[in-house]
């Protein structure tokens, strides 16, 4: 439900990074979203498409990598996948587990075209 805020945050962060380097067209924003993060990829995509119009990342694609949910067991030390949202250890059934992966909400990188001479001049 806060996808619009996250999309705007992505656009703002991208703007800050793109200001620092000469670049051509912005092709892709790569983000990593865990299965447990309360973010719907489709809503995020839609919000990004709307909010990016007129911004420096207009026309860029949002590439979402979903990260599967796993837990680390305090008892036996195993890392196992969370199946059917059961967070007990998949190996020993231990109850003391911590989420290892699946909570990510990370802006990883931006793919841009190499800067042409005009781009360099434009960024001066």
């Amino acid at each position, binding site marked *: *439900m*806060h996808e619009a*805020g*996250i999309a705007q*945050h*992505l656009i703002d*962060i*991208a703007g800050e*990074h*793109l200001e620092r*380097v000469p*670049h051509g067209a912005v*092709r892709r924003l790569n*983000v990593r979203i865990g299965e*447990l*993060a*309360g*973010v719907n990829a489709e809503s995020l995509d839609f919000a990004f498409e709307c909010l990016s119009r007129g911004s420096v990342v207009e026309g860029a694609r949002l590439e979402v990598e979903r990260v599967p949910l796993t837990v680390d067991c305090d008892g036996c030390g195993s890392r196992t996948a969370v199946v*059917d*949202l*059961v*967070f*007990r250890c998949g190996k020993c059934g231990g*109850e*003391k*587990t911590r*989420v290892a992966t699946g909570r990510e*909400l*990370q*802006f*990883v*990188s*931006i*793919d*841009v*075209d*190499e*800067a042409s001479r005009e781009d360099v001049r434009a960024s001066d």
Partner: protein
Amino acid sequence: MHLIDVQTGLLADNDAIAAENREMLRRRGIYAVNVMSAPGAGKTSLLERLLPQLAARWRVAVIEGDIVGSADAERLAKLDLPVVQINTGNACHLDARMVHRAVHDVVHGPADVLVFENVGNLVCPAEFDLGEDDALMLLSVTEGHDKPKKYPLMFRRAGLLVVNKMDLLPMTDFNLDDAVAAARDVHPGLDVVRTSCRTGEGVAEVAAWLERRIAAKRGVGAAPALPPLPPSPAPPKG
């Protein structure tokens, strides 16, 4: 093609301010609890019953989050406690920045316990750390027993699950055993208390749970341990 490395957590700003809030509260030994639920589950009703019990022993302050209006803050202000209303505008949750100023005011006033009443929503508030010690969530029996696996992040976050509106149980198909089992799949070992804000059932147990947590943080004599969950009544036939 050229790659610009960003590597920024999208909640990094919130987490940094939440850490500041937590540090301010820690320095003054103030225990903070973030109360969350779906709209209408009974957060304000529970607090109306609960806070007078806590206030008998601790100085309690409330930060009240609502999208608009101050109806809940007005209800709680009748308890003669300091209540700060925060209107989130169009945001569906409180975040660490929104409460930062109010937390600052609370730590400079007389307080032992700070209660955040979050915006009613089972999705977004779960993502936003405010700097609290514990999250308390309510699930009312009219919402259905399937909620833990629909909103797993919220049930993971919760330190205590309060199953509210128990007085309405006979009128619903809510299966308490299934709800608790699903909540404990998502959050093994989760403490559960059953309440009715109408009859007052279970409210003292919620107070005792909080008393133990407050005492643990402040390092003073603890309340007796939570009794095991009594067997639930048989689900209604039909």
